């Protein structure tokens, strides 16, 4: 289980997280929704220790990440996989080397075995046969799928997704959503998904949480969120310009 307890984070004078609390259950999909620029990526980076909170705790399986040194952090990070917003594939390496990277870094497997695993993971994300392509030769959707293959290469228990479908067409969005759900089931993953796509969130999430002005203002099952009376959430759900969220 992952617990975020009273997280505060500012960049210079800008307060991004302001006393945030959230619990994430094992083996479930938790979707965090919120406005663009609202601090969703910052929140996600706290969970994996890329950003340290000014105050507060990030507890992963009982240990506080925020208090860890580099070595402990690296041990903990091996439990995680992460798919970045723009996939963050290493553009000096081809697809095969990208997916093989964590395997070569952290296992003593033979090269042949590694290539087998790479093939298997690429198959799992529906991209067989792209091993020798460079990231720059791939479309946005393909890059994200390769990113997912890399994220699950080491069989992590927890996978973080930063806006996995932003910027994709509706069909590709459906395909990636389905891929995430299938992968989650196949490996019984704990998934944390950042999204501003409310429709996807309600479809995929076991739990949905809304981030607004540095806090989680509402969380619960998709039904609970969908029926919430919270005016901020209602405005977000309807995508309306009228309401408590000031747009400009």
């Amino acid at each position, binding site marked *: 289980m992952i617990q975020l307890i009273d997280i505060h984070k500012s960049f210079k004078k800008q307060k991004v997280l302001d006393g945030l609390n959230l619990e994430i259950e094992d083996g479930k999909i938790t979707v965090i929704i919120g406005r663009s620029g609202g601090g969703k990526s910052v929140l996600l980076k706290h969970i*994996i220790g890329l950003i340290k909170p000014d105050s507060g705790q990030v507890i992963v399986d009982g240990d506080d990440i925020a208090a860890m040194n580099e070595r402990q952090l*690296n*041990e903990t*990070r091996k439990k995680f996989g992460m798919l970045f917003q723009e996939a*963050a594939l290493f553009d000096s390496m081809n697809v095969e080397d990208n997916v093989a990277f*964590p395997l070569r870094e952290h296992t003593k497997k033979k090269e042949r075995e590694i290539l087998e695993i790479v093939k298997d993971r690429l198959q799992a994300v529906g991209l067989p046969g792209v091993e020798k392509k460079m990231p720059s030769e791939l479309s946005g959707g393909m890059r994200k799928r390769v990113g997912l293959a890399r994220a699950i290469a080491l069989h992590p228990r927890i996978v973080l997704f930063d806006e996995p479908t932003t910027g994709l067409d509706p069909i590709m969005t459906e395909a990636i959503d389905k891929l995430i759900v299938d992968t989650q089931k196949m490996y019984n993953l704990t998934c944390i998904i950042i999204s501003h796509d409310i429709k996807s969130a309600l479809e995929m999430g076991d739990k949905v949480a809304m981030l607004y002005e540095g806090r989680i203002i509402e969380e619960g099952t998709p039904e609970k969120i969908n029926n919430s009376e919270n005016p901020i959430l209602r405005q977000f759900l309807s995508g309306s310009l009228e309401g408590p969220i000031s747009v400009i």
Partner: protein
Amino acid sequence: MNRLIQAIDRFGRSILWYVEEMGRISLFFISALSWLVRSPLKVRLVFKQMEFVGVKSIFVVVLTGTFTGMVMSLQGYYGFRLFSAESLVGSTVALGMTRELGPVLTALMVTARAGSAMAAELGTMKVTEQIDALYVMAANPIRHLIVPRVVASIAMVPALTIVSDFMGIMGGYFVGVKLLKINEGIFLKNIYKLVGLDDIYNGLIKAACFGLILSLVGCYKGFTTYGGAEGVGRATTEAVVIASISILISDYFLTALMF
């Protein structure tokens, strides 16, 4: 009056900025150093960087070295001729190249070619979250990205300096002996007599220091890039400026220490 104060103010600020950057780069250096001693080197990555920093710079270094030697020979000839000391042209060129111009020019050329590329490449990796991705995969970016570049530069800038020294002396020889008809025997004899091995060694030690500086600055600037494509451009420019200034300043102090 106001203008003057403003100008002084701005000048003071740039010096402060430069000194602050130096401090941060030193800290960066310490963490790179600690990774260098703590974990085995990624040999394959080092070789790849050696090719990029070294092999691919040979052409520019040959050109700059040759022409610098040639022009030194020419200028030296015009100067020394006034008091009939043309025989010293060869040794002047050789001393100038090995002690100063070989290392400094090579370092500046490599800064422009490879130091800037390091800042741009790492900067792009930073703004596209590839460096974060390394952290997430528990692969330390300092070990993967910085250490190979720094090690390769410390090895290759001296190697290129040898090339530059040699080409400079050859260029000087060509202009002095072949074009200006200085007596070949005296030209060479004075080189042997006045240029010692320690002139060459000290030049190479300088070159290694410059390699450290230019790679460290390039990597640091790339690593701390923010703000998209514009940020990458800014990081690249600043890397070249800071590295060039630092090379010239440290050159003075290294020379004062050595000779």
